[in-house]
């Protein structure tokens, strides 16, 4: 079954209450997201899901040279970063998009849907 990553995007620094309108809204979003996770498990789509600390806590490690270079992250210069994600299994993109729309509503964030490499695409890469 194809796997997709549904990543939730948010500003680099979270405002008070994690960027939600207020504490109540934040708790409601957590509850909705929890319910969505349970639905994913119940219906057999769930692989993994979790939230991340805000992007200002990231560190970049460059091991390409002789010496490892460590610097304060995040890596990309951007106004928005991944704040959390789901990994799901779904038969096709239409199903993944429908689930992403539900997830987006639940967590109050925009969601990017991206397929994982498959055995088939990896083989094509090896043969290229």
């Amino acid at each position, binding site marked *: 079954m194809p796997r997709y990553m549904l990543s939730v995007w948010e500003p680099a620094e979270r405002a008070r209450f994690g960027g939600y309108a207020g504490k109540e809204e934040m708790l409601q979003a957590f509850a909705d997201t929890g319910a969505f996770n349970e639905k994913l498990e119940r219906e057999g789509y769930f692989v993994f899901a979790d939230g991340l600390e805000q992007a200002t806590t990231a560190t970049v490690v460059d091991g390409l040279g002789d010496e490892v270079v460590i610097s304060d992250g995040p890596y990309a210069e951007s106004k928005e970063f991944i704040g959390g994600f789901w990994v799901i299994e779904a*038969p*096709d*993109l239409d199903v993944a*998009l429908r689930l992403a729309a539900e997830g987006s509503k639940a967590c109050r964030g925009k969601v990017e849907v991206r*397929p994982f490499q498959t055995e*088939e*695409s990896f*083989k094509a890469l090896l*043969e290229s």
Partner: protein
Amino acid sequence: MTDAVVEEAITRAHREAWARVVGALARRFGDLDIAEESAAEAFAVAVERWPADGVPANPQAWLTMTANRKAIDRIRRESKRDDKQREAQMLSDHPADPLGVVDDDRLRLVFTCCHPALAPQARVALTLRLVAGLTVPEIAHAFLVRETTMAQRITRAKGKIKAARIPFRVPTQADLRDRLGAVLAVVYLVFNEGYLASGRDHDPVRVELTDEAIRLGRLLRTLLPDEGEVTGLLALMLLTDARRRARVSVTGELVTLDAQDRGAWDGALIAEGHALVRERLAAVARGGERPGRYQILAAINAVHTDAFDARDTDWSQVVALYDQLVVVDPSPVVRLNRAIAVAELDGPEVGLALVDRLGDALADYHAFHATRADLLRRLGRSAQSRAAYDRAIELAGNAAERAYLARRRDQLAR
């Protein structure tokens, strides 16, 4: 068989069978690349063989069979170094989709090419290549981009369909409306790009694109005859295209609706368009769904093409239809067109007041300035009119339109 007869048969087969062959192969092999390349190979074989062997009794069946063989050859070649998976894929026909509302490979193909997860430009390119059967150089030329750019755009889109598993499927009834909207938008965009070509170096009207859009519109109507907006879009395109010959003067200048030689309009297309509009009116009167934007636009064009003289145009009817359209689509462009109709009914002053309210939203839209220029001219406000013409000419992309605007401007006394 003469070469001309064979050539004609191949052209007709390409027009009628291309999308069916690509669609059938895409469903069978689950791979658009294989479908497209094998279909192209089958047509190449036809070009080679038909002059000597004669045109087969059922060209479509011949082409599908030949394309199938080519696809299987291709997969065998690839699966020599690959696993059994592809072989299995080759043998197991995809089961008929129980969720789809209409079972037709061409329809699956259209919905896949116009999937909302693809960029709008890619949807247009894929539809023209896989459904309409235009070649990559033809599509590149139509959209003024380099062939390599267009080829890349199509390859990338096909890559996304494969990697992200965009399904080869007609959407379920619940999603059909939304998804159909994206399909109709692609067809209408192709039509408009032909009818009001934006490139400065282009002919003002590009028949290859308008014809292709109408062909796609007819195909959609064959596949989804009960969808009102499908019929509406076809009627709209026919009633617009019917005026094509009268729309550009012999000196290459745009001729506005009120000044067109109505005798040069295409009576057959108008009759066909009117019949479609009547069909929709009857369906709505029987308690069908309220008409969407394409049906309303078609009705507006039916009113225009009903008048043998521009002065006989039923402007109150046109305004009433625009009132309906604003409810469905309150965009500034629609409100601009409504204001133009209001100006005909209630006078240029009333029209101008409505137009001026749209200044912020449409500051960079040439038709906004052209409309203002015309209304200001009719109100005797020449200096302001000239300034508006200047701005419109600056923004207009179409050569015939610029020629028309320049002449109107230069008619104003200094």
